[in-house]
């Protein structure tokens, strides 16, 4: 990905990790929304 808002999946890819997020309190959408907010702040 180039010059787009990063997502959790991008971070997982470059770091070669896979965050297992099955928590009801926390999901990928919440993290991606925060990443977008910070990236564009």
């Amino acid at each position: 990905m180039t010059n787009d808002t990063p997502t959790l999946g991008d971070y997982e890819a470059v770091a070669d990790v896979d965050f297992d997020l099955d928590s009801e309190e926390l999901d990928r959408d919440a993290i991606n929304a925060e990443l977008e907010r910070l990236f564009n702040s």
Partner: protein
Amino acid sequence: MERRKFVLSAGALAASGGIALGTGAFSTVEAERDVGVAVSDDSSAYLGIEPGDGPNGNYVDTTDSDALAINLTGDNDNIGSGLAGGEGLNANAVTGIADLFKIQNQGTQEVQLEVAPLAFADADFANFDGVLGVLLVPQIGGVALDYDMSWTPPVNLISLSELSPGDEIDFSLAAFAIPESAVDSVEISDEIEITAEEL
């Protein structure tokens, strides 16, 4: 009147002397000039690395050698003077910290800047007690800065090209910890590598 004439005459003599000396050849010149070199702390070095301008800059601490350090622990020296007692992230939550620190080109030429890694993780695999993820976020979505982000695996870094003298880039942090038992079971103690190379 007589004194004034004398002064003018002395000036003329000095000028004549200077011209006469200048026409002579020389074989060597030895001169001494001052050299001043200082080693600066991170905030004022040619590659400036310093806390964010706002209150969130208090999440950044310094090491014993005045180097910048992200410190989201109870050891942050700003606790009590900027940080009101917090000692870590919430579990079962996403924490976003904008304007955490910034990197500024305070040198003379364009550089390519690399920051690595972008993602940090820890997991308690033995007891399945917790997962902690920390992601660095460059705040380049809203600024007019020429950059080139590369997310190509397996290189866990951001590359920003053409960071001109005076340009700066702010960094934020997004982090999450799950589940509740992540408290005191996972932690991160690592380093960020910041590289600037002339273009």
